[in-house]
């Protein structure tokens, strides 16, 4: 049972042109009793901030993104929160109704839908939020609820704002949350039992996309994953979810990804100066050098102890806020994310082959095999010389990115720190899709957040990529490894070798 409680609250945001609106859903009853309350959790790095900074971050996140029960739609981001926008054309009609021009599908306007004034005299007044009594599609007249105030021609409004977002949340809570978690961190109740682990959206990265290596995922990519699932993982197909539900949940997931990455990037701005770990590190270092100097009988000032240092950082943070630097950081992060997600939807972001697939001949496969075994691509180091995903790289210990610390387990890891096996290309399962186009994109743009690199246009020319695609696609059906042509290194190095006893 879901009780909907629409509490729309327009608010002037920092820049004035974007609208922040909250809409909520009171209590979600899961199962027989009241389930645990759904809450967005924060990253460990957020929790590590000193209390002043932590409060600022959590306040920003709550104000600009809301809670699972009371979402906030920050219009800065390219997310379809739902609703039909329009402009008042004239107010000549009978009292309480206006003629309008709509920018969307009028069929979406339901009776008693909410109406929100975006601009005009009503926008900041008491009657900024009202509702619609009905809509006549023929005469384009919108009947307003009593107390809607007196709008004038040219006023902009939105009907049913946030409806898609609310639907997306319901669909997400029903179908996705168990694995992907309320926050989209891949830490749902069943998440920890799965291998591979469910995707953590909070890096803003999705693995199987149609876009260039630096770009975000497109709506179509996410739509396809929700519809068809990811074979070989526990992401099932939700083909029968319904078009409206799928579209809504895709928007909700994009929004979760934006929220998560906003938190990540925003906290990264503050971590160096205002995290407890960083402060402890620097006080430890100062203490050490102080003792060192003292031992050498040099003049030295006693450094601050930890609690004093944290207090000092707190004062510094207040100045940081007063200097509007915090607001600047929020602005910058929001701009960056909005631009990135907008960019992903442009045609330039897509990886599209400019030539046809090279004909799938034994010669082409052989060329592909030689490229696969070559040191230009180094495919074999991970995927193995026979494509079974057992290359030498899977036996090594690898560094955690950005550190000198090695992972405790052998083998490759993804950006999320989970162990990752290179795909066994002989299994015939293709997580990102089995079309030649999908394989082409995997080679061209890599797999985001994993060691699978993007070969781009410089290392491999398009026909060469197609040769590799042809070779890889032939692997599951190969009875014997071709022995006709040997890799150059094999013929040179191994010819003289005698078999070991």
């Amino acid at each position, binding site marked *: 049972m879901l009780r909907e409680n629409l509490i729309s609250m327009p608010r002037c945001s920092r820049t004035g042109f974007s609208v922040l609106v909250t809409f909520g859903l009171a209590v979600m009853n899961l199962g027989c009793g009241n389930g645990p309350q759904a809450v967005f959790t924060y990253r460990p790095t957020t929790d590590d901030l000193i209390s002043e900074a932590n409060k600022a971050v959590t306040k920003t996140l709550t104000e600009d993104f809301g809670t699972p029960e009371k979402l906030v739609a920050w219009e800065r981001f390219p997310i379809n929160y739902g609703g039909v926008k329009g402009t008042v054309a004239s107010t000549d009609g009978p009292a309480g109704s206006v003629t309008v021009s709509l920018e969307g599908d009028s069929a979406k306007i339901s009776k008693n839908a909410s109406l929100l004034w975006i601009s005009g005299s009503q926008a900041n007044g008491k009657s900024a939020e009202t509702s619609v009594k009905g809509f006549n599609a023929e005469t384009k007249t919108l009947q307003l609820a009593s107390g809607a105030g007196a709008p004038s021609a040219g006023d902009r409004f939105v009907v049913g704002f946030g409806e898609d977002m609310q639907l997306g949340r319901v669909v997400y809570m029903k*179908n996705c949350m*168990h694995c992907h978690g309320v926050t989209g961190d891949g830490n749902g109740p*069943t998440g920890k039992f799965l291998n591979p682990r469910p995707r953590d959206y909070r890096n803003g990265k999705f693995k199987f996309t149609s876009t260039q290596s630096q770009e975000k995922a497109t709506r179509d990519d996410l739509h396809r994953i929700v519809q*068809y*699932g990811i*074979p070989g993982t*526990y992401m*099932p*197909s*939700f*083909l*029968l979810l319904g078009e409206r539900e799928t579209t809504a949940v895709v928007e909700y997931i994009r929004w979760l990804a934006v929220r998560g990455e906003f938190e990540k990037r925003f906290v990264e701005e503050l971590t160096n100066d205002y995290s407890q770990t960083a402060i402890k590190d620097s006080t430890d270092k100062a203490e050490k050098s102080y003792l060192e100097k003292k031992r050498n009988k040099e003049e030295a000032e006693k450094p601050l102890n930890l609690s004093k240092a944290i207090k000092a950082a707190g004062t510094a943070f207040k100045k940081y806020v007063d200097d509007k630097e915090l607001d600047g950081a929020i602005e910058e992060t929001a701009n960056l994310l909005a631009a990135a997600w907008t960019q992903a939807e442009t045609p330039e972001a897509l990886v*599209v*082959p*400019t*030539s*046809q*697939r090279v004909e799938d001949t034994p010669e082409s496969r052989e060329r592909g095999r030689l490229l696969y075994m070559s040191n230009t691509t180094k495919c074999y180091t991970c995927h193995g010389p026979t494509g079974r995903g057992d290359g030498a790289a899977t036996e090594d210990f690898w560094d955690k990115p950005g550190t000198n610390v090695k992972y405790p387990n052998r083998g490759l890891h993804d950006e999320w720190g989970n162990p990752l096996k290179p795909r066994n290309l002989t299994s*015939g399962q293709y997580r990102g899709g*089995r*079309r*030649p*186009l999908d394989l*082409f*994109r995997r080679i061209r743009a890599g797999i985001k957040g994993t060691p699978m690199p993007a070969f781009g246009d410089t290392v491999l020319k398009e026909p060469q990529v*197609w040769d590799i695609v042809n070779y890889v*696609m*032939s692997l*599951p*059906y190969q009875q014997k490894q071709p022995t006709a042509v040997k890799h150059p290194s094999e013929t040179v190095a191994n010819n003289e070798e005698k078999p070991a006893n």
Partner: protein
Amino acid sequence: MHWWFPGDGNAYSTLGGKIDDLFYLILVIVSVTFVGTSAALGYALWRGAAIKSDEKVWFSHGSHSLEVIWTIVPSAVLLFIALYQLDVWAEYRMKGFAKEKDGSPKVITVVAEVTARQFEWRIRYPANGKPLKPTPQPDDIYSVNELHVPTGGLVTITLRTDDVQHAFFVPMLRVKQDAVPGKMIPVWFDATMPGNYEMLCAELCGWGHYKMKAMLVAQSADDFEAWKDKASADQFDDGYRKPAE
């Protein structure tokens, strides 16, 4: 009449009507039995309450004739059901193996291999004009949660599971078959009308059991072939589009 049956109540397979008839037969038998035994019990209670305390009690325990009666009557009913349903069962589970009337072996064309896994159905079809091989072939066509079958004749699918036990269930066709790990189970059914039918997992297979909802799309043989051609073209799409001139 059939309002309590799935969908609009009608069975959309040839065998479905017979299965419904069996259902009604058993329903009538158990109804009569239930009403009869309840009435007998009620009568016994009512009679017992009227017995005077000084009357001698009659114990039926150990009565040979009574024991014989209530052993033979239910046995006869069960035997009747067992024999009566034999034909439907044979048609559903065994006649696909049998020879044609002229003695030639029956040709079974398998439409698809349906693999259940937590929590979806993955389906593999042979390319148009080719038989389904037990192992994947380069030109096989794949779909997920959408099983396409031709109407107008018996179709066979090979049912498998990747992980735990599942059950292939199309309520509107009255088809149900468990999928057992390690087994490839042939399932025969037909769809009399083109249309979309709900396809479910009918064996609690894990926490996401409820998500295992799919669709069975019954199409005329021509439409089915056309769909396979289209699916194949989509699957082997290289993404190259000739630039508009």
